[in-house]
């Protein structure tokens, strides 16, 4: 056992956490022992706030010690309240392969205070209705940004009120004029919106608003990083601790500086020991709408979309966008899902029977693993060749075929069970199943356990069409 102080995330052992827990195994956190709870905490599957004894005053020192130990490099800032509140930041690492990313980039779509109330309502409904089913996840948009284009406090207040009546999504209130912003806040005093933004000119007034209404505050310093961290330092000293950083988003020739700033800030926070940079980052792809001129809207949306994609990859924790078409938002929402997938856990699809084309009682029956990549590759080969077949997806906890066989996650038992559970016996007359070539090792066992005749298919699914033509007979 060691008393060494652990620094990196990598070295954090459950023992380090356990040492600061009450160690009474009271089970109030839902785990059988404090050690079990400690393990869940290290895996970021549980939170120290779930331990009632730890929250008691006499354990304050231990609680703080744990908070410090588990502190993420990028602060976690919550916007909004209740079920729809959104957590920003909280990143533990710079590169996703070092652990995993948390709190997927929040996407805020805008409305302005010069839109008529009905227009505001329609637009918000549209934003809320955005929904795409993707491997068991539902991709949605997250926030509404209310911009004051009028500069009129009353107009802004009225719009914010309308927005709050229409949706429960968390808000970003945008105006560099603190009077206007305050008017908006008066319409939603308890909503904890994100305030955009404190600049070097208005920071004090904005800080007062943030403190008064307990709101997180964006710190904006376009392309001047020293000013940005100076403002962070100042605001922290002032007492505002929930900050979001806006280093500026610039399209076209401004891309190198944009990418640079986001990268520098994230690295400074995670590896450079610069705590002032340790806050969520805001990107604003909607800058592409500035100076639009005669440019076609589709082109602006295109540019906005690709800029957003680059920012999702390079550390943005929240994005403000204007274009809200399905075609332009779908790639980013899917990308966000991909980047924020936990790289330690293999992606799995739901097990079960999948139907391709219009199979009948004589159509071929195949199986595959539920590793997402395997499944999609096989599915793609079946679809693009317009084949009529049944595919049984076997539960292998996300393992591919060869590693599944080797790691005993793809077993003859599981295949036999899957065949039974699929009800395929009622769908085809024959009792033949084509198995992936890489599962040949368990071919005999599958036959014995399932009672079906096994045919060992090709090792690569791209050869399935050829295989079916040459070797399939019901």
């Amino acid at each position, binding site marked *: 056992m060691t008393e060494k102080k652990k620094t990196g995330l990598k070295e954090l052992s459950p023992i380090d956490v356990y040492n600061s827990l009450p160690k009474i195994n009271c089970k109030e956190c839902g785990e059988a022992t404090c050690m079990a709870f400690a393990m869940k905490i290290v895996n970021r599957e549980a939170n120290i706030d779930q331990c009632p004894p730890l929250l008691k005053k006499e354990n304050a020192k231990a609680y703080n010690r744990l908070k410090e130990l588990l502190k993420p490099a990028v602060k976690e800032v919550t916007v909004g309240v209740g079920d729809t509140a959104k957590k920003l930041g909280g990143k533990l690492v710079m590169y996703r*392969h070092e652990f995993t990313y948390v709190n997927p980039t929040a996407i805020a779509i805008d409305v302005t205070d010069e839109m008529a109330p009905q227009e505001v309502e329609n637009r918000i409904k549209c934003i809320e209705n955005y929904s795409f089913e993707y491997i068991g996840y539902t991709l949605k948009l997250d926030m509404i940004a209310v911009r004051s284009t009028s500069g009129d406090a009353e107009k802004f207040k009225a719009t914010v009120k309308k927005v709050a009546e229409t949706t429960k999504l968390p808000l970003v209130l945008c105006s560099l004029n603190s009077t206007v912003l305050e008017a908006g806040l008066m319409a939603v005093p308890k909503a904890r919106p994100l305030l955009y933004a404190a600049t070097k000119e208005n920071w004090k007034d904005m800080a007062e608003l943030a403190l008064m209404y307990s709101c997180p505050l964006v710190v*904006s310093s376009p392309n001047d990083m020293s000013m940005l961290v100076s403002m962070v330092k100042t605001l922290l000293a002032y007492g505002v601790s929930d900050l979001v950083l806006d280093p500026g988003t610039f399209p076209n020739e401004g891309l190198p500086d944009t990418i640079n700033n986001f990268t520098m800030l994230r690295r400074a926070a995670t590896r450079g020991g610069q705590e002032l940079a340790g806050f969520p980052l805001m990107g604003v792809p909607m800058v592409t709408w500035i100076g639009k001129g005669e440019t076609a809207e589709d082109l602006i949306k295109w540019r906005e979309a690709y800029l957003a*994609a680059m920012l999702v990859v390079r550390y943005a924790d929240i994005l403000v966008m204007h274009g809200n078409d399905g075609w332009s938002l779908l790639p980013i929402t899917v990308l966000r899902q991909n980047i924020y997938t936990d790289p330690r856990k293999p992606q799995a699809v739901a097990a079960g029977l999948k139907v391709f084309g219009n199979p009948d009682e004589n159509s071929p029956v195949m199986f595959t693993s539920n590793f997402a990549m395997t499944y999609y590759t096989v599915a793609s080969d079946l679809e693009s060749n317009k084949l009529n077949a049944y595919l049984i997806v076997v539960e292998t906890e996300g393992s591919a075929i060869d590693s599944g066989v080797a790691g005993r996650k793809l077993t003859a038992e599981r295949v036999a069970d899957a065949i039974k559970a699929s009800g395929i016996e009622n769908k085809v007359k024959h009792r033949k199943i084509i198995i992936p070539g890489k599962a040949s090792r368990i071919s005999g066992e599958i036959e014995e356990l399932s009672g079906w005749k096994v045919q060992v298919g090709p090792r690569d699914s791209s050869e399935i069409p050829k295989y079916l033509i040459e070797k399939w007979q019901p």
Partner: protein
Amino acid sequence: MTQLPQDGAKKKEDEGLKLSSDLLEALAKFQQIELEDFQMDVKELEIIFEPGMAGQIMPKIKLPGIAGRKTTAMLQTAFVPPVETYANKITEVRLGATRSEGGTRGKSVVVGGETSPAFYNFERPTTHKPVITLDVFDMEVPLSKAVKMHVKDVVGDPAAWAKLAVNKFGADMVTIHLISIDPLLKDATPKDAVKTVEKVLQAVDVPLVIGGCGDPVKDADVFEAICEAFPGERFLISSITRDMDVERCAKYVKKNGHAALSFTPMDLNLAKELNRRLYDFLGREDIVMDLTTAALGYGLDYAFTNMERARLNGLLGDMELAHPMSSGTTNAWAAREAWLKMSAEWEPRELRGPLWEVTTALTLLLAGVDLFMMMHPAAVKTLKDVTNYLTSGKKADASKFADWVTVKA
């Protein structure tokens, strides 16, 4: 107990605390010495904080929220760009050859040579701007509607297609996919393939990528014929894989002055292994790596992380991964969402498709990809624009884009 010299502290301005030679020796050996029950009497001891040191020396403490007393002035502090240096740089690979270089191209391109992760311009500038090669097929192929509308007049005529790719769509290179050699398609002969490549060479003067059909045996034969027919042209042979006769292929690639694309299925250990085997016959400067590109939504995260790790490890000193990377970004079109006609709220696919390819490409651009194999002209244009911007060395016009809040859109 060892005594530290008492007045050694302030001899000269620049002299620090002198340590006895035994201490220094011990320090060199063990890197750290602990003295217990230490006592030192000093007449005068000066501790000097050099400019810039403060951030490193000061103990990190949580700045208290001073209740009641609020700062009125801005607390100035400097942001220190977190520049790092790496043990290694990425190998440079030249593709294509001009007349003086032994070929017939108008210009050749160089990929790789990076000394920092992708576009960490705050550290060092990008060495070579990433390069784009456009897909050209040697026979009729099924294409998605979004793509077909741009190339329908040239499908089936690789020379014309190549011309269009370079002149109209701005490709830096052209990939001639010789899929007709596939035994399951036309089973065209190596001689046929050589003829096709000759036509393309005549049609454009950019460097070429030679794409096979994926059959390890047929590809090996066809590549050999092409390498021997055009010595010195420095084609990028796409690709050499572990299930081919690596020795045979690498030898004729080297002999005829070409470069090889080392292609492995999404596994860095296999990539390293294949490169190790290639080093027996090829120089480092002859190898580009393809670590496999999966489409957005269909494994892009694996591809991205693989490539990001490969680039970082290459810079940190893993020589087997310190090669320029290529991406088959066209694979983005394998995603149904790229080409499928979906319900109204997701249309039009003519925009969604190329944007799918662009998103795939940009994600991998940020992982360090140096050579992009692409399909759709709009995607190519955007990638060119972005790489031009990123390597322009220009500063952002901050004031122009600072006020997005009030823009009327």
